[in-house]
């Protein structure tokens, strides 16, 4: 009744094509942005900001990148964390060794990751299906090996590069709140960019390729350009996310932080959150990031202090079980559940 579209008359083309046509949606997003930008640093403790919100935002960004590749363009990729690693190392080298300003080095990390992603996307022009999925694992292993064995990159024996202290335009970024702002600005801007990307021609071409690529090629969509662009754009997002998390969360770029398990976590995020949905990446990212914390708190509230390896096993069981559960119950993920809820709300109090 309150949440409705009837009676909302659009007078300009711009209003017609708005991302959030229903006013309540728009106010909701504005409210969330206000809370995120102004409320959070005052309401949330340092622990929440640095250990929960920053990983949530960064992994949602990486999951968004993977969503472009797997959810929109239909190319399954099991090695996405490797592109995050490329971005992390590149931005660190640019900032630490060549004194490129922080924002530019983060974007540079993304661009290099995009180039690497496009190279590893070349097999997708010829290989399809599960063969492509396994080939994407090649990216994970090859990049891991290159980053640890190429001395110019790793600069040492252990393959770790520490982050120098950050500053943007002369302001040092040392508190959790400032790091949170840096991450938040990047994530918000890239999400808006991504949302418009998938609403436009590129997104439609990707979805056509996902649904039936033979037919897409017949109607004139260049598979070569669009598939490589999918890999490039998704790797760009992963690279920026990798750089951000190396600077603000880990404090170093270590290849171990971007291993195969992280790739699977990203895949789990988009499965649970919803493939082919920008909002779904955030749902999935939040879910998976909060899951270990939630299990820890939950088990502690029962008075049972579990050993760390048993806790890890329970995490694995719940992670795997949730993936299966969502695939059976709601294959389009939490985003579809949210969409269904909003649709029912639009008709409320009528049933149909």
């Amino acid at each position, binding site marked *: 009744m309150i949440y409705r579209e009837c009676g909302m008359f659009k007078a300009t083309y711009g209003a017609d094509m708005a991302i959030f046509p229903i006013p309540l949606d728009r106010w909701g997003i504005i409210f969330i942005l206000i809370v995120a930008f102004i409320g959070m640093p005052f309401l949330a403790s340092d622990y929440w900001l640095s250990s929960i919100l920053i990983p949530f935002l960064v992994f949602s960004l990486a999951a968004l990148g993977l969503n472009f590749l797997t959810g929109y363009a239909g190319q399954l990729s099991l090695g996405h964390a490797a592109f995050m690693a490329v971005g992390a190392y590149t931005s660190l080298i640019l900032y630490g060794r060549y004194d490129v300003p922080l924002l530019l080095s983060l974007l540079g990390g993304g661009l290099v990751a995009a180039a690497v992603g496009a190279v590893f996307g070349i097999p997708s022009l010829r290989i399809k299906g*599960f*063969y492509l999925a396994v*080939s994407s694992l*090649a990216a994970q292993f*090859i990049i891991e*090996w290159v980053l640890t064995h190429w001395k110019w990159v790793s600069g040492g024996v252990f393959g770790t590069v520490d982050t120098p202290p950050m500053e943007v335009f002369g302001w040092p970024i040392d508190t959790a709140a400032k790091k949170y702002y840096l991450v938040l600005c990047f994530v918000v801007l890239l999400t808006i960019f991504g949302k418009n990307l998938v609403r436009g021609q590129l997104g439609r071409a990707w979805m056509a390729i996902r649904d039936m690529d033979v037919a897409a090629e017949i109607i004139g969509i260049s598979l070569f350009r669009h598939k490589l662009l999918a890999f490039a754009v998704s790797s760009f997002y992963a690279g920026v996310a990798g750089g951000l998390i190396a600077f603000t969360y880990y404090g170093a770029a270590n290849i171990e932080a971007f291993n195969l398990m992280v790739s699977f976590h990203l895949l789990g995020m988009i499965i649970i959150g919803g493939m082919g949905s920008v909002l779904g990446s955030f749902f999935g990212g939040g879910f998976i990031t909060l899951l270990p914390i939630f299990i820890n708190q939950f088990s502690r509230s029962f008075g049972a202090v579990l050993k760390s390896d048993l806790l890890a096993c*329970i995490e694995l069981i719940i992670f*795997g079980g949730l993936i299966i559960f969502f695939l059976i119950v709601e*294959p389009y993920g939490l985003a579809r559940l949210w969409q269904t809820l909003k649709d029912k709300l639009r008709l409320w109090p009528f049933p149909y």
Partner: protein
Amino acid sequence: MIFAIEVAIGGLLVGVMYSLVALGFVLIYKSSGVFNFAQGDMTLFAALALVGFLTIFPLWLAILAALVLMIALAIAIEAIVLRPLVARPPLALFMATIGLGFLLQGIGQGIWGTDPKGLNIGISDIPFEVKGLMVSQFDLVGAALSGALVFGLVWFFQKSRTGRALRAVSDDHEAALSVGIALNKAWAITWAISGVVALVAGIMWGSRLGVQFSLSLIALKALPVLILGGIDSIPGAIIAGLVVGASENLAEVFVGPYVGGGIQTFFPYLLALLVLWFKPYGMFGREIIERV
């Protein structure tokens, strides 16, 4: 020269053991069209179960008990995970098996613990000499076992009635249902056979490496074997296993020192990518003709 031949032979024998793991993948794909990413975790689960049973049973009884457990697991997987996902796109089933893999990892390590365990089944590791070349006895036994399994399975799929039914299921679930093939039984049989293969692979690799978490990573080594030979070809799994094993060993020994070592992790993938570029469905895989 002798060294190169030894490296190659060692690689060939290891390759046959890789193809043992790849065989599990091929079986499930051949019979239900599902790419079972959980095969490595099933191998780990089977090996952990065997080690657990060995503490209370003698060897033959422990193997039997592990066999029964894997078959029960297969039936459970079919009922809980696969039946609700009938006729879904293959991608959904693939991701369900990824989830299943994590589930098995967690359950197996939760029940039997995460510390590495040794597994000794009585085959000695002493190498013996053949015309001046050193060959490991254990590898030979593993190769013989894998070869026997492959022949048995090829016969099963080609000649037996159940094998034909399973191949029909792999083609199209709904069509097989409409013809009258009991889908749930077919899937249970497939996963049970694959579970048995996982148990054999788990025994061989567990004796070699010790039963620990890294056993499930053997599946990652077997994946290039799989895509090189073709996902649905049993002979392909053996031949590709030989190729991957030999080339991986040779590359590591002869090319490795020039580039810093450690290339055996990704060299099989590079090789597989190269072959896939020319034959997108693997060397012996069935080519899918796409229609609009």
